């Protein structure tokens, strides 16, 4: 019995059709026109309890909209959705007690007060008695490596500490499904890793089902054995991550800083030259040839600095769709 089931999930927004400028504004004021913008089109999938699933896609792909339909914040235009045995948008008490939502750009903690105060409010709202709330806070704080940060005003916490406190607040009532929308947004590499470790840990210990969106490939590779890729509202990939990375990132990006400038043609034999401006060179090299190519580059040129990275997911997906590989 899957814990999340979506069938033919569709959401269409009505947006105001307004021309720019004063004239457009006036015209709009007197004769409102709107058009329908499809955000999510006919998306179906199901997720078993205890899974960690990554939701991937460029900005505006429909990830957040889908997450909002799953958590009951918006009604689907068409299709059915069921989470933890409930229809989300009815927002019944038992449903709300079994889910939680964390959003990277929004916070629920009270800005002027220490997180502990917000946690006490949440404990009361979820009907947890003091002893139980205290036990859970201690347990989660330990997992998150939070100490006296919990008694400092939220406004004085770093972004990473704040996100950890947000996670604590979201998990206090032990939800069985946790939705995360860009939980690592803006965090430094260390804090990102902490958040990921924690999510893996909580999933392992309590069997919480985790569904997260991110456009950091790192989050997805570290956490999600299964990935849903959504683009322009359509679900294009549902399956193991390996398959997707194979399709998405067959190449690594290599950035070189050279001691002496070299022409672009000089690098043609190593990989695809993306850009070459004097000392700075960017190459795309297939993964299976990466180590050999890097070794040769280091031997053949006077390299000041060398950096290997995966191209950003947006870029990869964009390239992929231009090539039409997935479609």
């Amino acid at each position, binding site marked *: 019995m899957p814990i999340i089931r979506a069938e033919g999930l569709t959401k269409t*927004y009505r947006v105001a059709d307004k021309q720019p400028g004063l004239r457009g504004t006036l015209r709009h004021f007197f004769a409102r026109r709107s058009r329908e913008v499809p955000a999510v089109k006919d998306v179906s999938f199901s997720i078993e309890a205890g899974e960690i699933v990554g939701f991937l896609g460029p900005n505006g792909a429909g990830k957040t909209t889908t997450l909002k339909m799953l*958590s*009951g914040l*918006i009604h689907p235009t068409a299709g059915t959705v069921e989470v933890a045995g409930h229809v989300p948008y009815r927002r019944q008490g038992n449903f709300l007690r079994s889910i939680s939502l964390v959003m990277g750009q*929004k916070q629920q903690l*009270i800005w*002027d007060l220490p997180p502990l*105060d917000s946690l006490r409010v949440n404990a009361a*709202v979820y*009907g947890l008695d003091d002893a139980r709330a205290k036990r859970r806070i201690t347990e989660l704080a330990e997992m998150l490596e939070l100490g006296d940060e919990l008694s400092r005003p939220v406004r004085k916490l770093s972004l990473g500490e704040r996100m950890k406190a947000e996670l604590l607040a979201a998990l206090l009532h032990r939800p069985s499904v946790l939705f995360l929308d860009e939980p690592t947004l803006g965090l430094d590499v260390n804090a990102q890793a902490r958040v990921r470790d924690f999510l893996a840990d909580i999933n392992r210990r309590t069997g919480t089902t985790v569904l997260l969106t991110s456009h950091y490939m790192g989050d997805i590779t570290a956490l999600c054995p299964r990935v849903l890729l959504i683009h322009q509202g359509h679900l294009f990939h549902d399956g193991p991550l390996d398959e997707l990375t194979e399709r998405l990132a067959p190449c690594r990006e290599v950035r070189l800083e050279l001691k002496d400038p070299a022409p672009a043609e000089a690098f043609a034999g190593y990989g695809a030259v993306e850009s070459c401006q004097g000392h700075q060179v960017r190459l795309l090299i297939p993964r299976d040839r990466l180590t050999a190519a890097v070794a040769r580059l280091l031997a053949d040129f006077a390299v000041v600095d060398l950096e290997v990275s995966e191209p950003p997911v947006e870029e990869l997906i964009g390239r992929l769709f231009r090539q039409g590989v997935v479609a």
Partner: protein
Amino acid sequence: MAKVVAKSLATFRRYQRTLARFWATSLTAELEYQANFLIELLSVGGNLAGSVFLLSLFFGHGRSLGGWSWNQALVVLGVYTLLDGLTSTVLQPNLSTIVTHVRTGTLDFVLLKPIDSQFWLSARTFSPWGLPGVVMGLGLMAVAAVRAGARPGPEALLQVAVLLIASAVILYSLWFVLAATSIWFVKVWNATEVLRSALVAGRYPVAAYPAGLRTFFTLVLPVAFLTTVPAEAILGTGSSQWLLASVVVAVVSLALSRWFWGFALRFYTSASS
């Protein structure tokens, strides 16, 4: 049956505990700014002195205002000051946050809590700075009533209490409906300010206004129910019809505000996408 009772009792306790936490946390947050207390005290005192002075101008040479004596009119002013204090304590801080919630999308967090969202939005904060107004209002009501020769018995006092609660409920409902329109119009600060200014009319007995305005303040914007009707009850000049009417208006407007909130939420699709 017993199960249902036990369940509602547990729910009631949960709301009670939540409210206590709400107010304790907001009090902690507010008390960081002690200077506010002094400022608010001065502002309420100044406003009250101004209104009393203005009122005194109408009463030179033993004149009366629409059949109200000087002390009787002061009772109305007392009720108004009390309501204004309540507004600053609970209504204003909570209902102005609705706009912020809509604009920044944090309304999502409220909607995902297993608690009534209207309750959360209406009771989340408590600002102690309105309390001087409440105290001054009660004081003025009592002093003016005694000087006007009113000696209300326990039954009359109960009526007064009911009427004051009804006024508070009417005011709350009006304000909440207006604040809830932020779901469509996002910026409604101005609208709530207009409401607050219109309610200033409640500083004086409704009888003091020309017939047209009187009808408006009774039927359209129920200012009459807010201050004049409770004041009449205090002075013993009220009637049971008005008591009933007040309670009915209060219940209807509260029900209306709940219906309207449900209606508004159906349009809510949150700010980010």
